[in-house]
């Protein structure tokens, strides 16, 4: 099963293993990784699953979708490598993915 490294804002790291097909948001929520809320349940409708993808993984995780881009557009803490974690699905090609969490979700 593919693994994800979550780096909390304070620096604490969590290594989570999930079945392929699981979204990065769901992986965090199901395993109680603090710092990802996922209020809308993965509908790309709340932006409370904001993460920063480590640059080395940017290409593999692909492009933001249009609605994702709209929501990230007015998140004040968004950067170039910001993604909504519910829009990234894990598969073997993403095994070892590293994402950083923002200070808070809004």
């Amino acid at each position, binding site marked *: 099963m593919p693994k994800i490294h979550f780096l909390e804002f304070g620096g604490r790291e969590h290594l989570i293993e999930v079945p392929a097909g699981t979204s990065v948001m769901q992986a965090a929520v199901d395993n109680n990784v603090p710092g990802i*809320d*996922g*209020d*809308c*349940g993965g*509908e*790309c*409708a*709340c*932006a409370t699953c904001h993460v920063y993808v480590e640059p080395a993984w940017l290409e593999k995780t692909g492009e933001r979708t249009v*609605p994702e881009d*709209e*929501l990230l*557009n*007015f998140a*004040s*803490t968004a950067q170039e490598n910001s993604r909504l974690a519910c829009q990234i699905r894990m598969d073997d090609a993403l095994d070892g993915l590293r994402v950083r969490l923002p*200070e*808070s*979700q*809004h």
Partner: protein
Amino acid sequence: MSTLAVNRAQYEAQAVPLDRIDVSDPKRFQDDTVWPYFERLRKEDPVHFCRDGMFGPYWSITKYRDIMAVDTNHKAFSSEAGGIIIVDRNVGERFPNFIAMDPPKHDEQRKTVSPIVAPANLANLEGLIRSRVCTILDSLPRQESFNWVDKVSIELTTQMLATLFDFPFEDRRLLTYWSDVATTFPQAGQPIDTWEKRDAILAECLAYFTRLWNERINKAPGSDLISMLAHSPATRNMQPREFLGNLILLIVGGNDTTRNSITGGLWFMNQNPDQLQKLRNNPALIPSAVSEIIRYQTPLAHMRRTAVQDAIVGGKRIREGDKVVMWYISGNRDEEVIENANSFIIDRKNPRQHLSFGFGIHRCVGNRLAEMQLRILWEEILRRELDVKVTGEPVRVPSNFVHGYSSLSVRISA
């Protein structure tokens, strides 16, 4: 509400022909009898057209997933074309603000206002808010009945707003007054019976804020909202009507909603003593209880959109130009998505999964602020072991939009 009234409402909701159901009647919100109507619609006609509504023809969207579909489809469903409440206003008279704008203008202005209510900024306010909560709670009368809405809910939210705007503290109740006026539709026999009267009062509000704006624009940028609006490139050239529109948005957004969640929370805990006991036994449940209070209250009963292209929702064809009302208050009781939706349960598995803040690009920017205020209030109530007993039925507001209370009589025994 009496059992008799509940039974009568249930009977009537079943007896009326489906196409005659108009859930928008403010009276049903005032006497709390709207529930069986929504229950019937969710079951029999979840996307429901009402031809002869009190506020004109409109679609009711009553189920969680259909509401989510409309809320996230801002291309088909505009906030700008007809505003965000079921009542139509003459376009020329409206006070424009970003809740009632579509992209790209919406996004620009939202981006400006959003940082002040983002968690990082709120952390700076927490101490101040807590000390104000403490002062209010410690000064409440003991062994005598008083109105919780006035002494706690209004006072606390008003102080909060005054802090956010850096508004003259002694004039703070003006904020409450303007908020009430802004959400009032003129009605015969009420203090505000014409749109002209309403607009005249809001003009006073504009004059007051314009004075504050002028003071702040000549000073270095501060962290209060008015200073931010005055200095930000996205908002500093706003027309007066637009400036007022955005101020009203923040006043109303931060006022009625939080106020009614404060009152609702106390009422629900009194109605469900087992849940209150659970909370007292485990204060770590406060954040989850706060989300449940906000779901159960649904402080804004609906948001309205206008279709700007044809669209299918729940199998029904909605046509360009149609008025579409998302009843959050109904979607939050949708058993298909929320288990035991009609019960107040403070330790749900997914307490944050509710519609009260909306979803999509207009999702409430103030949600973290609202949650923080409620969290602090409940932390301080529990810390003091305040025993607040409700001594009568709440008095509700006759509105199909602001879902709330004008009074709740309580008594503190210890």
